[in-house]
């Protein structure tokens, strides 16, 4: 066996972990995109907000995990909802084009990211040492830490919960109606404003949770939001834009491409390789694997 073959199981393990985080984030992104009908770049910054809120509550204030994590998740959700109320809702009310919303959301990302960097400096921070212990487990020659397994479990539970929520609750049915035709949904008495607001809240919570998991696993930086978002959007495009569950397949595909792209070359090229492969994929299948 060449030394390179040894890392094969590890690359698979890494791909599954980052795929799980992408999958969770893609769900949030697709929810926003299919109901509010624009590419919300500001969604990426909720990852940063969640991570740094956790850093603040648990490291600087010394709160316990059981208080700090829910607080950080909630804060991201509330901030996401607030951004919707202050910025996106008025724009949508006056029928602004999706490009205007996209640029506004780019502004949101730039603004919040800079504020986080001013408050906490742009230095890399990790939450890993907050965990009581993080044993390493071995699977078929690859290793996974306990927090990575937790991440995986959370991804599965969250996807199932969202699936059940969308499939069986009135809220889910309302969202499907809104994503099909907002005007008609309004006519039959669905409070579209409220429902979309709730979507932003849920997506914010998801983003915040992902930020915490990333912080526990590796670490957080103010600029990480956009990079994670780009992978998430790629996953969403690969899975077929707006297709909620195609996005999950896309998430794992993108994660495998990113991790295996650096198999034979050094890690600095990771981003370039990942995007190049994705762009080639898009030339081949512009509508993704599972077009809606």
């Amino acid at each position, binding site marked *: 066996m060449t030394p390179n073959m040894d890392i094969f199981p590890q690359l698979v393990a890494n791909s599954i972990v980052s795929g799980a985080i992408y999958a969770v984030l893609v769900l949030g992104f697709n929810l926003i995109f299919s109901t509010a009908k*624009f*590419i919300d770049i500001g969604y990426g910054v909720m990852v940063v907000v969640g991570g740094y809120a956790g850093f603040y509550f648990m490291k600087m204030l010394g709160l316990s995990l059981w208080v700090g994590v829910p607080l950080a998740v909630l804060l991201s959700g509330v901030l996401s909802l607030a951004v919707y109320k202050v*910025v996106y809702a*008025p*724009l949508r009310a006056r029928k*602004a*084009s*999706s*490009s*205007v*919303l*996209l*640029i*506004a959301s*780019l*502004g*949101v*990302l*730039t*603004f*919040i*990211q*800079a*504020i986080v*960097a*001013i408050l906490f*400096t*742009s230095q890399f921070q990790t939450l890993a040492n907050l965990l009581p212990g993080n044993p390493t487990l071995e699977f078929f020659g690859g290793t996974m830490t306990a927090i990575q397994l937790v991440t995986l479990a959370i991804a599965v539970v969250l996807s199932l919960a969202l699936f059940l929520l969308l499939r069986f609750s009135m809220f889910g049915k309302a969202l499907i109606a809104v994503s099909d035709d907002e005007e008609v949904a309004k006519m039959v008495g669905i409070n579209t404003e409220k429902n979309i607001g709730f979507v932003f809240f849920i997506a914010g919570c998801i983003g915040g949770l992902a930020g915490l998991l990333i912080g526990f696993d590796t670490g957080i930086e103010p600029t990480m939001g*956009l*990079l994670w978002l*780009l992978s998430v*959007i*790629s996953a969403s*495009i690969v899975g077929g*834009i707006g297709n909620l569950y195609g996005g999950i397949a896309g998430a794992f595909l993108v994660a495998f491409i990113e991790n295996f792209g650096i198999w034979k070359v050094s890690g*600095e*090229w990771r*981003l*370039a390789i990942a*995007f*190049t492969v*994705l*762009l080639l994929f*898009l*030339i081949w299948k*512009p509508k993704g694997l599972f077009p809606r």
Partner: protein
Amino acid sequence: MEYLIHLAILSSIFVILSLSLNLVLGYTGLISLAHASFFGIGAYTVAILTTGFHFNFFLALLIGMLISAVVSLGIGVVLSKFRGDFVAIGSVGFCIIVWSIFLNAEVLTRGPLGIPGIPRPEFFGFTFSTNYSFLLLTLLFAFLVYLVVRYVAHSSFGRVLKGIREDEDALQVFGYRALHYKLAVFVLGAVLASVAGALFASYIKFIDPSTFTLNDSIFFLSAVILGGLASNKGAVIGAVVLILLPEALRFVGFPPDIAAQTRQAIYGLMLVVLMLYRPQGLSGEYKL
């Protein structure tokens, strides 16, 4: 006085950038966040060719424009595969790819160390070594770019671009190949941006990848949107305002890292506020 000349040079370089982005964003309605890449290609071509191979600045400038044209044509073809606003996301991807090439292709670009000692332009024995003469040169280039952009915008070609912006399908029905027009304007914008890059490298004398990031693309976008889409006057005003605004922060006396972040925060907030209250910018004729 030296400081004012410095600001004037920077302003005119950024005027070239915002004028060229305005062609793409304002007149044609394509949201491109890859503009920093073409700015960088122009800068790196001049830096590499003049320091490593002793090329004349103007020859290196032409080669940079050519490389920029080829690269932007390739990027444009790929971007044309994206639907709607996803073009913007694709351009973000390219901006990051090109930046990571600047950062990691150390054989060519010396990576994060950057390239020092870039000479000033020389023309038949005359070197633009003083900042005053360099200012005249950049002003000349900015004026030429202004003329080109104005000519394009007022030509029949420019009217087709505006047609694409307003209703691409309708234009296709009239028999225009929208894709060809979009590619042409994207390439033209990239070529003009590389001119700004060449001037920048030669003026600052040192470049590294940190000047050609996504944040810089966002900065150019902010300048065009602030000035007003599809208004050349607006593009000039936007660039000058955004160059002078952070200078005010220097006098407040923030530490450098905080000042840089404060600038980002201002650009971000400005984009949000403009979208909410004045999507056409200060003097634009068109709302996204």
